[in-house]
């Protein structure tokens, strides 16, 4: 066994330039697949990772909500909130009264989303994710005080807004008691919202319609069931079908994963083209090698080589080239994934980690071997089937 390896190795060595070009072909194909998959996983993790932290939250909204489209159908009322709170497994439920209001700061005016919250519900609304950066949380006895998102503090107005600055909301002066930490991503809505007490909201916005209920569940495993129950209860209250959308982060994660799986599949399909090209390259190289060595194959058969001996020699040759290609491809793929990751970080400011899964690397080598053996099969069979007398005569 060892000897046939040596024999195949020597034949490969005889044709260094051609072999290394073939090998590069496979390596680039494998590297492309590995790099794209690793960056894809990194992208997926950076997006869904954030959602996982919010997995105990259910967002309840009137209307049909889906990623990309949202159709508002109305609003909830106090009775809906009470019913939701009464559902088993619900830890807390927080109502948000919200509306667009004119906000003024140092002579600059803009329209902003203003959200009224029950201060006792802050943990339900913000979960474990949103934290107050500067200043403090809103308190129940606060009057005309507000908590502002990171973008409002830093981006919306020419001058930055800090703790204890005063802003004008809907004609009333409010004191900023705290600035929230930057959220970005899925909770970027928080960055551009202003939070005030429920009491203040009712007077400023002039209504007490609930725009959203945020629910925290005790057990994440029950989130889906609870969400369904919430939808049923509220729909019943309003005598409407599909009036309520209760979205768990779990379902959002599932939806996103589906999108990412599709994305990965497309990326891998694109990268696979280079693998197909590489396998044609191997086949070409091996066919040339078989042609060139027709005479040699004839000699081997004349001195007693069986078809099987010739077949395994050529298969081994293409196998060895492709294993080497696969290994080089893994190395190139790791480098490539990191380069893309760093490149995205530099270009978009959002770091996407390159996640190198061992099964992807291993898969890369396995695919390389399969590609090598498959594309080596035809030339090897061709070689093994040659008539010895004709092959010996071939010059």
């Amino acid at each position, binding site marked *: 066994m060892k000897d046939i390896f040596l024999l195949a190795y020597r034949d490969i060595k005889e044709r260094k330039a051609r072999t290394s070009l073939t090998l590069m072909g496979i390596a680039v194909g494998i590297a492309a697949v590995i790099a794209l998959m690793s960056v894809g996983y990194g992208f997926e993790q950076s997006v869904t990772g954030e959602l996982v932290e919010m997995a105990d939250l259910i967002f309840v909204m009137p209307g049909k909500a889906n990623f990309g489209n949202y159709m508002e159908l109305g609003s909830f009322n106090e009775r809906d909130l009470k019913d939701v709170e009464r559902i088993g497994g619900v830890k807390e439920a927080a109502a948000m009264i919200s509306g667009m209001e004119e906000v003024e700061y140092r002579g600059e005016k803009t329209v902003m989303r203003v959200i009224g919250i029950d201060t006792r519900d802050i943990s339900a609304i913000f979960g474990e994710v949103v934290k107050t950066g500067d200043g403090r949380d809103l308190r129940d006895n606060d009057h005309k005080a507000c908590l502002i998102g990171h973008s409002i503090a830093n981006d919306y107005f020419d001058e930055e807004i800090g703790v204890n600055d005063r802003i004008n909301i809907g004609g009333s002066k409010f004191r900023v008691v705290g600035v929230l930490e930057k959220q970005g991503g899925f909770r970027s809505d928080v960055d551009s919202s202003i939070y005030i007490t429920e009491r203040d909201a009712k007077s400023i916005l002039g209504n007490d319609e609930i725009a959203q209920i945020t629910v925290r569940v005790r057990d994440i495993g029950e989130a889906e069931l609870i969400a369904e129950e919430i939808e049923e209860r509220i729909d019943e209250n309003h005598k409407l079908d599909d009036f309520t959308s209760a979205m768990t982060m779990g379902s959002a994660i599932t939806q996103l994963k589906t999108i990412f799986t599709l994305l990965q599949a497309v990326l891998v399909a694109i990268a696979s083209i280079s693998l197909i090209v590489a396998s044609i390259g191997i086949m070409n190289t091996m066919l040339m090698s078989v042609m060139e060595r027709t005479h040699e194959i004839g000699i081997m058969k004349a001195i*007693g080589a069986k*078809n099987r*001996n010739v077949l395994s020699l050529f298969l081994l040759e293409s196998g060895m080239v492709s294993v080497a290609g696969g290994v080089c491809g893994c190395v190139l793929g790791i480098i490539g994934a990191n380069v893309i990751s760093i490149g995205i970080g530099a270009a978009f400011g959002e770091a996407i980690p390159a996640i190198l899964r061992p099964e992807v690397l291993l898969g890369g080598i396995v695919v390389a071997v399969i590609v090598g053996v498959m594309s080596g099969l035809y030339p090897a069979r061709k070689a093994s089937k040659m008539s010895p007398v004709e092959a010996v005569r071939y010059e």
Partner: protein
Amino acid sequence: MIRTEHLSKVYRMGEIEVPALRDVSLEIEEGEFLAIVGPSGSGKSTLLNMLGCLDKPTSGAVFIGGVNTALLSENELAEIRREKIGFIFQQFNLIHSLTALENVALPMFFAGVKSDARIKRAAELLAKVGLRERMHHKPSELSGGQQQRVAIARALSNNPAVIIGDEPTGNVDSETGDAIMGILEGLNRNEGRTIIVVTHDTEIAAHAPRVIRMKDGRLLEE
């Protein structure tokens, strides 16, 4: 040892059929030294390929040690070529990427002989044909005569009963040719191997006790 019965071979060149062998019946005894002579195109190489199981007849049969080779599979034919027959070619037909030693060891490799045993026997055989000093040279570093001696050593590697030479002296000068015939004579006389040589050179054929002539694919006379 080797017997042919009404052996014919017809080559097809497009539409035209070219008969290369016509009804050749021949019997070769064990330990014989036979030369087949004839002009080029007389069918002598075709006959030799049949005797060596390199090619199959169109009709008729070749018996080797009583076995009808027409009934054998490709693998079984390969086994006969490996174990029972040693080939020597006009063009030497060594494998260029391998050293003399590795070339001689190659048939043993196909026979599944262990590496150590292979190398040992290959070295002994090369010493026997006078190439002890050149074992690790590649064919391109050897003269024609030396290459043919490597080929003889290779033909002997699986210890076959029959050595078949297709113009074994055709590519070397007459002095070297005589030396090569000398080696073959030695193998016949001292080791009792059956030697069958094809040549168009009557001087070379004179080394053989039995000479048969061919013309137009037929045996002429003994």
